[in-house]
């Protein structure tokens, strides 16, 4: 199988980038897209060129480190999937595949396809936790949590922090990411004592990082590899209002 990659190359954050085309042969449809990029990189090394820098780690859809725009869609042509789970069988022989980094002011490009998503860590830092020191926990079954509640918390907690929601949003909003963490913790009884402070501080940090506002297009939930529902954002907004009124 043969494809033409059109890939964003940019040496670092200070210089301008641009697309470059690479013809790659000797591929097969069982290869993942990232394996095809590995293959391209080996050829580049042998041609004495610098490799394409792109992110990956687990290559099984859970670490959240990979993530690029493929033919204009976050994580490629399928809904609810990570880039590493995308295989060449989704493309035809001879296709041109355009690959570019996440585009968002809050995610500056570091090199080629790699962006800086540390803004997400700083949102978590502002309250995406339960303040409980090691050694202070009560017996696990002492506080019952109904299955529906635990399932709802888990649905939100499944977020892998890849940033596709931001990248695909026309406003570059991080509302889905932030809402998922707030709702995960605020749904559980263990998260209640800090619920108001959590939602206020995390939302404030989200705004300070330069993410845009949510205008409820629902684009994020389509690309979210975990299928986290946009309803989470409405829930976060309600929690935010409550925190401002009663917090």
């Amino acid at each position: 199988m043969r494809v033409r990659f059109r890939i964003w190359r940019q040496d670092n954050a200070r210089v301008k980038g641009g697309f470059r085309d690479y013809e790659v042969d000797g591929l097969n449809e069982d290869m993942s897209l990232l394996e095809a990029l590995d293959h391209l990189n080996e050829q580049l090394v042998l041609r004495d060129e610098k490799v394409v820098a792109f992110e990956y780690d687990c290559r099984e859809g859970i670490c959240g480190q990979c993530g690029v725009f493929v033919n204009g869609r976050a994580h490629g042509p399928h809904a609810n999937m990570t880039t590493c789970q995308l295989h060449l069988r989704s493309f035809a022989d001879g296709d041109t595949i355009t690959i570019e980094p996440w585009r968002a002011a809050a995610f500056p490009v570091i090199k080629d396809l790699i962006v800086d998503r540390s803004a997400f860590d700083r949102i978590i830092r502002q309250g995406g936790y339960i303040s409980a020191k090691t050694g202070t926990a009560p017996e696990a079954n002492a506080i019952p949590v109904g299955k529906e509640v635990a399932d709802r918390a888990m649905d939100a907690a499944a977020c892998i922090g890849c940033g596709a929601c931001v990248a695909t949003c026309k406003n570059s909003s991080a509302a889905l990411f932030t809402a998922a963490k707030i709702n995960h913790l605020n749904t559980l009884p263990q998260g209640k004592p800090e619920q108001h402070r959590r939602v206020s501080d995390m939302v404030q940090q989200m705004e300070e990082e330069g993410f845009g506002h949510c205008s409820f297009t629902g684009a994020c939930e389509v690309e979210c590899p975990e299928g986290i529902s946009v309803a989470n954002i409405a829930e976060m907004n309600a929690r935010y209002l409550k925190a401002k009124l009663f917090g």
Partner: protein
Amino acid sequence: MKKLNAKIPEGKLEEKWRNYQLRSKLINPANKKKLNVIVVGSGLSGAGAAATLAELGYDVQCFCYQDSARRAHSVAAQGGINAAKNYQHDGDSVWRMFYDTLKGGDFRSREANTYRLAELSAPLIDHFTQQGVPFAREYGGVLVNRSFGGVQVQRTFYARGQTGQQLLLAAYAQLYKMIRAEKVTMHTRTEMLDLVLVDGKARGIIARNLVTGEIQRYAADAVVLATGGYSRVFRLSTLAIGCNGSAIWKAHKRGALFAAPSFTQIHPTALPQSSEAQSKLTLMSESLRNDGRIWVPKRKDDPRRANDIPEDERDYYLERRYPSFGNLAPRDIASRAAKERIDAGHGVGRLKNAVYLDFRHAIERFGLDTIRDRYGNLFTMYRKITGVDAYREPMQISPAAHFSMGGLWVDYELMTTIPGLYAIGECNFSDHGANRLGANSLLQASVDGYFILPNTINNYLAAELGAEQITTDHPAFAEVEEEVRAHINRILNVNGHKTVDHFHRELGKVMWRECAMSRTRLGLERAIRQIESIREDFWSSVKVTGTGEELNPELEKALRLANFLELGLLMCTDALQREESCGAHFREEYQTEEGEALRVDEDYGYVSAWEYADGTFKLHREELHFEFVQPTVRSYK
């Protein structure tokens, strides 16, 4: 070198950890502030340790090579975490869990360590529940359990098929809580390249900023390695692509003994390799074996589709060979049994390298909804990767390199043979012996980081309070930094004609052929010669483009592979020296008539701890004394 002292506390098994804590030296909170600890790795053990040490008052610096602490490969553990809560009222206890783990490891671990692992498991579930881990619950609100391999009780707690992710995110959140409190400084995209010793004690690290390429020095009063497993030495494994053995290998070369390097676990249920270009083998959780049944066609090279093969022409070989544990036989045994069937010509799939994992009976019995509730995300993952709907036809699975039981030798305090250097989580050798039971990995990483290290490191640091303050201006830092720079330049200057991946594939093939599920003297001797020649070729023909002063993924890979090429040699050396079969270490020369592992306790009832001696390896032995249980023939029949 002096005799290995594991520092096992006195007393009955159930009193040892308490006795240890009663006697260990304490440091008052005002003094803890003055002590600086480096934690390398931000996975479940590293993040847990960094957060807890910071809560106690130490000043902590934490490092990871990824863009965020949340990416560490603990995230990928699917099935669950064991704890002796006995919530299911099925006869579980700390003692039983201890015994299952010791037996699961084929009696090649310390009684005291293994007991402590079981003892601390119950409070760990309390801890994670309080931190907001959404463990699976009954409708009435209490926690649910399921079974895992090698065990006849239900003691595994889980959060769908994403347990590792949920535990890691809890640890990551606690880490960021302490970053907010300005007690932890986090260094992401920073990789440790060497360890700095001053007067024989661990005093810091040399690291590379992976974005700028800058070589940096960090000093501390103690260094904790929490860098995970090294099964990427096989190249194809269930590990993340970036997982590596560099930190522990550098520590080993600086004097830390490396224990049981050849004890590496091959997981029975990963997705089979489909081509040479493949970079990774995806794991399918062992929990699937709770309800899935493993089989191969009785007829060799059967061309029929799985669903067309009638019931009486299927060989449920695990149920046949191990009737009491069946599909929940431990991993080493299940992997070997799969290999035996595949080698005998019963393999399935395009490359005939897989076996079936079938849910048909489970779906008939419990209904589709229940199976979807239990394993939904795993079935979805399977479909995304293979394009196949496993609710309709069986999964195809195959053994893959997975966990390293081996690692840096540590004593009861988790300290290596270098004073002030600790190893926690998968990168040490402590609790799992020659084979790890499913759902004990998250457990060990967590208790090491949260509960054990924060209660042992004080015993060392108390004496360091009055010691001379070492800064990065000390000549030892300049010396190691120079060696690191020279090593990088040497790799960049080879300028050969073969890629790093080429050498990694070559190494992986040798390791998989000779040092994986079954090993022989001849094969291991051959492997050692082959690895030496791959290594020579690497240093004369590798090509790395770009420079050291920029983000350079090829250079990162080359530096890691250079260490794997040495570690592979040690693994084969260890496997060759151990002339017995135990757990995951199966020497073909040592098996029973039925093809089961034949342990030789009289000659090999010890932990092998290897010293690096200028390119060769010298064996030290830590004899294993079984005071409380008698090692028996490990049977799951």
